[in-house]
Every structure is written in C-alpha cells, then in structure tokens.
C-alpha cells in the first residue's frame, strides 16, 4: 500500500489544485470537486500554482503548503502563463511530473487537445465542466493510485488490447461521452512518444468524438 499512500493525501481524500483566472469558474470547479469529496485549493494563475507547489524559482520551497497535491486541473487560456505552459513546467519537473494534469478549455480545438495530450495531460475537458466530467477524472485518479504491480499489469494488458483492438472501445474503462473529447485511459509516464499504442488510441477516440 506504499504507492497508494504516496498518491493519495493523508486522509485518503484527493487534494486537487485548480487553476483558473476566472473567478466564476474557480468557484464552480471548487464546488464540483468538493461534492466529489476532494480537498481543493484554487489559484488564479499558473505562476501562483507553481508557487504553491514550490516550483517557483524565487520562493524556492517556501511557498509549499505541505499538503501533497494529487491532481492539477487547469484552464488552458489564461493571461501570463497558459495552462499548456503550466503543464509543460510540471511535466518537466522531476518532483512533480507524476502528478496528473487535466486541462479545461472552452474551445474544442483538435490541435490544442493533441498538444496537451502529447505533453502528458491526462485529459482535456471542454468547458463548462460538468459533475460527470469531474467524477470520471476522480475515478481515473483513484485507479492510478493502485499498487505499482497492478498498474504495470493493467498497462501491459491495455497495450495488448490496443495492438489488437485499436479501433474499438472494448475495455471497460473507456467511455464515449460525445460532449467532452477526453480519454479516460490513464497515461503511463513512459509513453510520451506519439507512436505509442496508448497515445494513438487516445487520438483515435478524439477523432471519433469530433
């Protein structure tokens, strides 16, 4: 259970860091997350998010609040640092790259979705975000929190399925929700290359939705 303990916050509640420059959206996402039994911290910018995580160069680890972050949900279009730039910073950090990042955007642009997934985003949610979107993201996160052994077995199993069933959504963890072009498949940290079966399956599913 050590790996599960690492991924989940101390009281076994997921702690989510939500980043959005819109005051309205911060309030809504906070509510969606609290209803889904998460601890929530909301910040208004990528810079603040990095400060909170302790990735900010100036503050060093002084900004770190001490409560481990299990998931980051960020708006894409923000002044200053975009959600995409924030995603890249997090994925390039050895300390924080394992934290799943979900991008939220009001614009359903395929190239945007692709670049976010390529940079390692878990999912891309189209705004306005619904409770069903948040619940799905939570379930994926909890599944990610399983022991390392299970995770490896599941990824291997999926890779096998991908090779054999690339065009169908036959695995029980996938769902087709027309409104938000996001994939429920957990990303394995090593598959950043676009040629991986996981990635091409994600892209195929997105094309189906669009």
């Amino acid at each position, binding site marked *: 259970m050590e790996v599960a303990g690492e991924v989940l916050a101390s009281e076994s509640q997921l702690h989510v860091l939500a980043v959005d420059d819109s005051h309205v959206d911060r*309030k809504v996402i906070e509510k969606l997350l609290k209803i889904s039994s998460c601890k929530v911290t909301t910040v208004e910018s990528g810079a603040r998010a990095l400060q909170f995580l302790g990735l900010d160069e100036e503050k060093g680890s002084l900004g770190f609040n001490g409560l481990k972050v299990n998931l980051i949900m960020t708006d894409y279009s923000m002044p200053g640092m975009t959600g995409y730039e924030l995603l890249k910073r997090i994925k390039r950090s050895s300390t924080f790259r394992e934290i799943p990042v979900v991008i939220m955007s009001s614009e359903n642009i395929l190239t945007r979705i692709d670049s976010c997934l390529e940079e390692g985003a878990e999912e891309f949610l189209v705004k*306005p975000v619904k*409770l069903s979107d948040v619940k799905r993201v939570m379930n994926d996160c909890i599944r990610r929190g399983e022991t390392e052994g299970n995770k490896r077995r599941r990824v291997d199993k999926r890779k096998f399925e991908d090779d054999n069933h690339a065009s169908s959504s036959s695995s029980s963890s996938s769902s087709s929700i027309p409104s938000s072009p996001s994939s429920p498949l957990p990303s394995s940290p090593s598959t950043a290359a676009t040629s991986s079966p996981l990635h091409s399956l994600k892209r195929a599913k997105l094309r189906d939705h669009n």
Partner: protein
Amino acid sequence: MDLVQLQRQFVDYRTSLYHEGFLDEQFTQLQELQDENNPDFVVEVVSLFFEDSERLLNELARALEQQSIDYKRIDAHVHQLKGSSSSIGAQRVQKVCIAFRNYCEEQNVEGCLKCLQQVRHEYSLVKTKLESLFQLEQQILTAGGSIPM
C-alpha cells in the same frame, strides 16, 4: 399569494427563462450542485458573474473608445465574458459574445460597437430576470416553503 401559488409562479418563471433562451442546461447543473451545506451557492456564483461582467463591459467600452483600437485586448475581454456566461448558463449573453469575437477577428469596429450594445442589453436582461428569480425563491423560503427542483 399563498405558498403553493408562489411555488407555481416560481416554476413557471424559471421554465420561461429556459424557453426564451436566457438560461441553458448549465444553470440547471449549478442548481443541482447546491445543497443544505451551501444553500446560497447559485446566488454566490451568479453574483460573481455580475461583478465580472460589469467590469468587463466597462473595459470593453473603454477599449472601443480608443484612437487606436486594440482588438486583441478586446477579444481577450470578450473571451472572458463568453466563458463566465457559459459557466452560469447565460446563453443569450454567450451567443452575442461569439458574434463579438468574430467582429474582433475581422477588426470591424462597427460590428464590435454593435455587439457591445447587444451584449450590454442581454446582460441587463438576464441580470434582471435572475434577480427576480432569486427574489421569488426568497419569498418561498420566507413563507416556510422549499424551492421546487
């Protein structure tokens, strides 16, 4: 007016707002998120929307008065307004924002000015209607009743 009449009036009024396109499904989503722990959630979110919108409308008016119009800046403001109206389900405001952004892209000042006028109008309509809706809700609660879902 007795409680039952108030409740009926509330339901009819709310239904009309959906039929006339002032509100969409997203507003329903917000209502469903409200519970006893946070009974003012919808009012709070909508109040934030009012604050944001008023600020953005003022910025837009100022930006369109400039000698040299900064369309990127205007587009950024409209994008924000489009986002927050979408988040609370203010559908008519959101629709005008979409047209507004198209005029920005074309750098069409006349189109932008027209849209600003339209969006101000739609905003003021939805604001009045939401305030009336909340007032009806308050009357129901004061009369000891519950808000029909």
